Structures are given as structure tokens and as C-alpha cells.
């Protein structure tokens, strides 16, 4: 029983991380029908940027106070991630707005490779995983549960809380605010939205900004939780997040969050209980994806594709 609870907690932590990244995928897809494969790299860059903030910008006396250092790291990571996402939109995707859909997709893959290599070669020591400061905001809560001990770290709690709170704020923003309505209107019919006085470029930049900020924050949380950051994680978690977005229904906020948690839980639970263990956990994730797509091609919360007259 303790093992089960432990794996559920681990699954939720992983799921929260995936969900934060998946939100960026799903929002960008919703508004310009682009699978932004470089979004995982934005997350990775966010991790490195927060580490750089800690190492190069924080005065040493501030570093031991987590309540001071952590928000500043989060801001550093998020700001760099936002700038990166917006620059990417402006120079890589906007010129291809009316090109065939394959062109921006290939561009996104190219941007992804460029970002990874730039960080790998440009950040000191990034050819190998770079350690985050250890024991930083790290407090383990242990408690007995039936037959054993369950561990939950403060970073794990933070990850779950931030992802859920972030998703709720985002959902409220999208449904209740002027710019949120403009985003949904642009996603549903960009030409008509323009005729209602909505500026499409501003709306799209806002979407990339929000996606970038969430990915940047995910990067910080990943770093302090795993205690290192590596140029490979962008691709790996990008794939998880993309799968989560598809599973939940691309374009749906709720779908991305539920998809993220579903993948996190399946990965940890199947690694523990299914034959083959952790070597096969990715298999189960994609089995679930295929099964869902067979019965609901639009994903769990997606809207069926409509052909516009």
C-alpha cells in the first residue's frame, strides 16, 4: 500500500510537470494549428536560465534563503523562456503563417535542434547534466502508511500545486477576460475575429507568452526537483507533453492537464506493477494514446474537427 501511494505521488509530480508544458502546446495549437515542437526546448532553456540566474546574478548572501532565491530564479527562467518563445514566433513562425502546414512544422523541428545545440555548446559545462544547487528548498516529509514509509519532498508538493493553480488561473483567464475571449475567437475563426476588432498578431504573441512563461516555470521546478538540468530533457518532456496534449484533445486546457496527469500516473504505475517494469513504461503510455485516439480521435476533451464552409 505504501508503494502504491508513493507511486501515485510520483505520478502526480511527473504529471504536473508534463501538464505545465502541455498547456503551451495545446494553446499554440489551438490558435494557429501549429505543433510547436520547439516548445520542449523552451522548457529546457527555462531550466538553464533559472540556474544561470542563481549562479551569476544572485548575490551569494541571498542564495540560502529559498523564499528569496526561488521566486527570482522562477522570474529569470520565465522571462528568458517568454522572450525565446516570442522571438521564435516572430522570426520563425510568423513569416510562414500562410505557408502550407508542413513548412512551420519542419521549422519547429529545426528551431528545436538549434536551441538544444546552442545551449549544449554555449552554457558552461552543458555537454553533461548540470547540477542544480543541492538541498535547496529540499525538505522531505516522511510518514508511515500501512506497511511502509512514504516520502514526499517539498519540491514535489510545489510541482503539483503550481501546475494545478496555473491551470486554474489560465482557464479563468481564457474564459473570463477580454484577451482570453479574443484568443478563443481567433482560434475558432481568425478572419471573423479580425472583423470584430481583434488584432491577430497581438493575440498570437500573447499565446506564445503564456505558453513560454509556463514552460519556463516548469523548467525551474524540474531543476530544483531533479537537482540537475540537461539539454536532452527538452526533447524528452516535449514528447511527453505533446502526447498529453493530444490525449486530452489539442486546444483544450482541461485536456492538457488531465492528459499530463494521466501520463505521469501511467508511467510510474506501469513501471512499478506491469511486467517489464520501467523499461516498458513508455510502451503503456503510447498504448493508452492509441486506444484513446481509436475511440475519440479528437482526444478526451477536444472538439471534433469541423469543416468550415
Amino acid at each position, binding site marked *: 500500500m505504501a508503494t502504491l501511494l508513493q507511486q501515485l505521488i510520483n505520478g502526480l509530480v511527473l504529471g504536473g510537470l508534463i501538464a505545465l508544458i502541455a498547456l503551451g502546446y495545446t494553446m499554440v495549437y489551438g490558435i494557429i494549428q501549429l505543433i510547436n515542437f520547439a516548445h520542449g526546448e523552451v522548457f529546457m532553456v527555462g531550466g538553464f536560465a533559472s540556474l544561470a540566474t542563481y549562479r551569476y546574478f544572485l548575490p551569494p548572501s541571498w542564495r540560502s534563503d529559498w523564499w528569496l532565491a526561488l521566486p527570482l530564479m522562477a522570474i529569470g527562467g520565465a522571462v528568458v523562456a517568454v522572450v525565446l518563445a516570442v522571438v521564435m514566433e516572430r522570426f520563425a513562425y510568423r513569416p510562414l503563417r500562410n505557408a502550407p502546414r508542413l513548412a512551420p512544422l519542419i521549422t519547429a523541428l529545426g528551431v528545436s535542434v538549434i536551441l538544444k545545440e546552442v545551449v549544449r555548446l554555449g552554457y558552461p559545462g552543458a555537454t553533461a547534466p548540470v547540477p542544480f544547487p543541492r538541498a535547496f528548498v529540499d525538505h522531505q516529509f516522511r510518514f508511515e502508511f500501512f506497511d511502509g514509509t512514504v516520502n514526499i519532498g517539498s519540491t514535489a508538493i510545489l510541482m503539483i500545486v503550481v501546475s494545478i493553480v496555473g491551470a486554474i488561473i489560465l482557464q479563468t483567464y481564457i474564459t473570463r477576460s477580454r484577451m482570453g475571449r479574443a484568443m478563443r475567437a481567433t482560434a475558432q*475563426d481568425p478572419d471573423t475575429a*479580425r472583423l470584430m476588432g481583434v488584432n491577430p498578431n497581438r493575440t498570437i504573441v500573447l499565446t506564445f507568452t503564456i505558453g513560454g512563461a509556463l514552460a519556463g516555470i516548469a523548467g525551474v521546478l524540474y531543476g530544483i526537483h531533479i537537482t540537475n538540468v540537461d539539454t536532452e530533457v527538452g526533447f524528452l518532456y516535449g514528447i511527453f507533453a505533446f502526447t498529453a496534449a493530444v490525449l486530452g484533445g489539442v486546444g483544450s486546457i482541461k485536456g492538457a492537464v488531465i492528459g499530463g496527469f494521466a501520463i505521469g500516473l501511467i508511467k510510474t504505475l506501469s513501471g512499478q506493477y506491469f511486467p517489464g517494469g520501467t523499461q516498458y513504461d513508455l510502451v503503456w503510455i503510447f498504448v493508452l494514446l492509441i486506444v484513446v485516439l481509436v475511440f475519440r480521435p479528437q482526444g478526451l476533451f477536444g472538439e471534433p474537427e469541423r469543416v468550415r464552409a
Partner: protein
Amino acid sequence: MSAPPVLAANSVSMVFGGLTALSNVSLRLQEGQILGLIGPNGAGKTTFFNCLTGLYSPTTGNVQLRGKVLPTDPAAVTVAGVARTFQNIRLFPSMTSLENVLVGRHARMKQGPLASLFHGPAYQRGERDARDRALELLEFVGLGKAHDELARNLPYGDQRRLEIARALATDPKVLLLDEPTAGMNPQETEATRQLIFAIRETGVAVVVIEHDTKFIFSLCDHVSVLVQGQLLVEGTPEVVRADPRVIEAYLGKPPDEVEAEVRQYAEEVAHGGPEATQVIQPVRDQDGHEGGKR
């Protein structure tokens, strides 16, 4: 008659490649006027609306709103005060009626991206005012009870009314309606006519594209007839209705002329003219299939 027009199209031409969709179309819309734009299919009526709303930038000529040349950016045209509806309804299907109207309110609201995140008092007030105005407009077009309904679930006639409410939410000086009664039954058509009169009462000038000539003649102060991209006739409904060129171009030739043609054709057939055999004989390929299909 010499008062400055609220909307003026000056010699608007629109050429797509080798096709001239509009040539030298001019139009004057006076304050408080309801202007009808009629013409056969493909005459360029919707193209003209697209030029008026900045969706197309005219090849030559320009459009002025109260003496100022309109930009060719749809969002900016909306801000300037021209709103429209569409021939094939283009609501945001997955938003509620109220949300659709609120999107129309977008350009008249001030909240930026951050203000929406931190719900300050100014933000709350702006959002509440917009909501009140939107509900008022829904009431005005007769959809007061349907504000929580998703747009795609509304009956057809209500969707058309919702489009009008959404367009009105942009606080237009000029409202362009592209076939507002298409697919409506007589009761709904009459309700729409009353609605357009009510819109005029609020100080908005209206341009209506319609095929239903009875509707146009009973609604409009002024009618312009567009045929093959050119302005054929304009004037009061009485003048336009009586003009033989309009009757021919838009409604077909007068019955006696058509009758004469039919008689002539029948005679040709009776005498075994070459035209007759050509019409009856279908083209066959070597497999014996009809038509030119491969």
C-alpha cells in the same frame, strides 16, 4: 440630399488576376439611411462588402467613413465604425451567445493582457459594463433568454440575429448586412425588417444585400443595383422597381419578350434547325458513356 454621406465608396474597382469583379462602383450612404444592394448572383455584392470592411484592398478607388479614408485592415475598420454580418453565418460556434457579443465589444474595451490577470476595480467595472451592454443588445435583437446557449446550438434564425447583435456591439456608425434573411420564413423575415428599422432608430446607417426584392423594396430608402461588377441603376425603390434594365438584368426579361423567344425557338425546332439536333444529341465517347468524363 447634399448632406455629407456617412459612408462613401469612390470609384471602387477590384481586379482578381484577369477577372474584374468590381469596376468603378460608387456609393453614398446618408446618415440614417437604409440602403439596399441588389443584383444577380456573382454580381460582386459580397466582394463590394469585403472592400468596404478592409478584407480586400480595392485595386483602385477608396472608401471613406465620414470623410476619412478607411484603412484596409479589418480590425482598424471595425474600430473606425463599420461592422458587418455574413452571408454564410460566421459566429464563434463554441462560445455562448453572450461571449460572441462580448468579442464584438473587444475593440471598445480597454483592458490589456495584464489587467485581465489582476482583477483590479477598473477591470471589474469594464467587464461589467461590457456584459451589461452585451445583454442589452441580446435583448434588443430578441435573444435575451438565450445568452448562455452555445452559438452552434441556436436555431438558424437566432444565429442570424446573434450575428447582428455581435456586429452592433462594436458600436458601428454603419452596419453592413449580407443577406440577413437568407433561409428565413416569412414571419422571421418580417421580424428582421422591424429589427433593421429599429437599428436605424438608434442612429446607425445600414446597407443590406438581399435577393428578396420584395423585402428590399419595402425596407430601403435607396436601392443600388449591381450587375456584373458595375452599378447599373440607383435611386428610390419606386425608380429602381420600374426601370426596365433592372427588371431584365435582375428578374429576367419581361414575360412577353420571353414568350416571343420561346415561340421563335419552337419554330426553329419544328423546322429541324441545326441548333435543335445539337441540343438533343448527347456527346458519347467510344465506350458509349455520356458526357466528357474520363
